[in-house]
């Protein structure tokens, strides 16, 4: 018993060599913990990146909280969530998303102001590389993650053709800061069967299972606390009743304080549930420690 505990603690110390040093929270360089994506994971606005949330380094713990509002012509999407980072290695996140159909709800036969919602519980593990310090190597920071979605209004989701109201996304993300060029680039492959991020359930009458989708982001550092860029995120098209489009955004992320940042974006989510051209303003406020 004692021996196995000793073995275990030795194994843990070996896995986290930082533990031999003083534990200490905070200390990450500005913006290198990313901002909060709509799914709650550290990333850009739409994409999950390989960066780990929070201000901590390999020696500590950190966390972030966000509130996001996306104003579209016919819908509103709000998201709020928290994320915790451990030793710049592991990230745990939670987000709640709410999708208000406003007037369009009546036209869709759901009733005016009908809202969809979902919980997203995420975990991310940094596998290799360092996006920030390894400037002499092309090797990006690579992380894998899982996001478990629990969507509300299951009967309605089934009625529109979704197969499930809960499902997991799996993704692998690679992020690199190209400091000499002042650039940040990210590529993510996500295995998902989510309809409209999961708000319309998972799988559909057209396709049931997961497919590989891509999230790409590229940003330019305009100052140490200011990043502007573009993001593109492809999505499956599982439901027969409405075509689902890819989404993109043009964003500016501004760390106006060591512990707070604001992301503003022009976002195009395409057609949603037969309602055309949902383009609008994305605003996200984040605090981090």
């Amino acid at each position, binding site marked *: 018993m004692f021996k196995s505990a000793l073995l275990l603690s030795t194994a843990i110390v070996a896995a986290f*060599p*930082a533990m031999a*040093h*003083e534990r*200490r929270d*905070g*200390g*990450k*360089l*500005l913006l290198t913990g990313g901002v909060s994506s709509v799914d709650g994971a550290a990333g850009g606005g739409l994409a999950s990146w390989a960066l780990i949330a929070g201000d901590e*380094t*390999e*020696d*500590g713990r950190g966390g972030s909280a966000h509130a996001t509002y996306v104003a579209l012509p016919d819908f509103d999407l709000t998201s709020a969530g928290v994320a915790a980072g451990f030793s*710049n290695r592991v990230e745990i996140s939670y987000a709640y998303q709410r999708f208000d159909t406003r007037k369009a709800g009546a036209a869709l036969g759901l009733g005016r102001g009908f809202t969809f919602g979902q919980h997203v519980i995420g975990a991310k593990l940094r596998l290799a590389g360092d996006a*920030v*310090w*390894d*400037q*002499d*190597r092309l090797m990006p920071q690579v992380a894998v993650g899982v996001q478990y979605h629990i969507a509300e209004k299951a009967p309605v989701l089934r009625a529109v053709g979704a197969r499930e109201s809960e499902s997991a996304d799996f993704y692998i993300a690679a992020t690199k800061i190209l*400091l*000499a*060029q*002042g650039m940040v680039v990210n590529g993510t492959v996500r295995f998902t069967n989510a309809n409209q991020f999961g708000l319309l359930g998972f799988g559909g009458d057209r396709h049931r299972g997961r497919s590989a989708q891509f999230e790409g982001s590229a940003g330019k*550092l*305009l*100052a*140490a606390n200011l990043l502007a860029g573009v993001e593109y995120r492809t999505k499956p098209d599982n439901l027969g009743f409405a075509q689902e489009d890819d989404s993109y955004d043009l964003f500016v992320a501004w760390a106006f304080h060591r512990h707070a940042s604001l992301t503003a974006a022009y976002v195009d989510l395409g057609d949603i549930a037969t309602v055309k051209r949902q383009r609008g303003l994305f605003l996200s406020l984040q605090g981090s420690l």
Partner: protein
Amino acid sequence: MSFVPIILLLMTQAATPPGEQPVAPYPHHNANAGATPFADARMWQAFHESAGVGRIVDDLVATNIADPRISDIFKGQDMVRLRRTLKEQFCYLLNGGCDYSGRAMAAAHADMGIQDADMAALVENLQAAMRREHVSFAAQNRLLAKLAPMRRTIVKQRDLDRRRPGG
């Protein structure tokens, strides 16, 4: 075998510059600077040549020793030597025509227990010093990209105490 070359080597190193404390002998080499210089002259100009680099290093060292996050690490160290060798290192890397006469990064930072957060603090202080010197953001980032990989030989550098018990 003759001891003359060794004695000569020790003699050249014994000439401690004024105001500095002597250090244990070490092999001199530009490779100690920890990175290769930029090929063109533009970076040296972007940093306003020796006057600019001088101001940046003086500012950086002054900021570091006043910064509660990292000031302890600098206590009791030779700041006269640090300023001189840092100026040489920056001048060498920025292709300003200097040689670097200091120690290798691993040797200079061993056993200090420097952590990621200290490295980030120093980078922030350097960014502030470069901003105050009005170095363009693009040129700042090109220098930082050269310095960033040195994290591997600076943070938690403990090569020299690996053989110590409990080290």
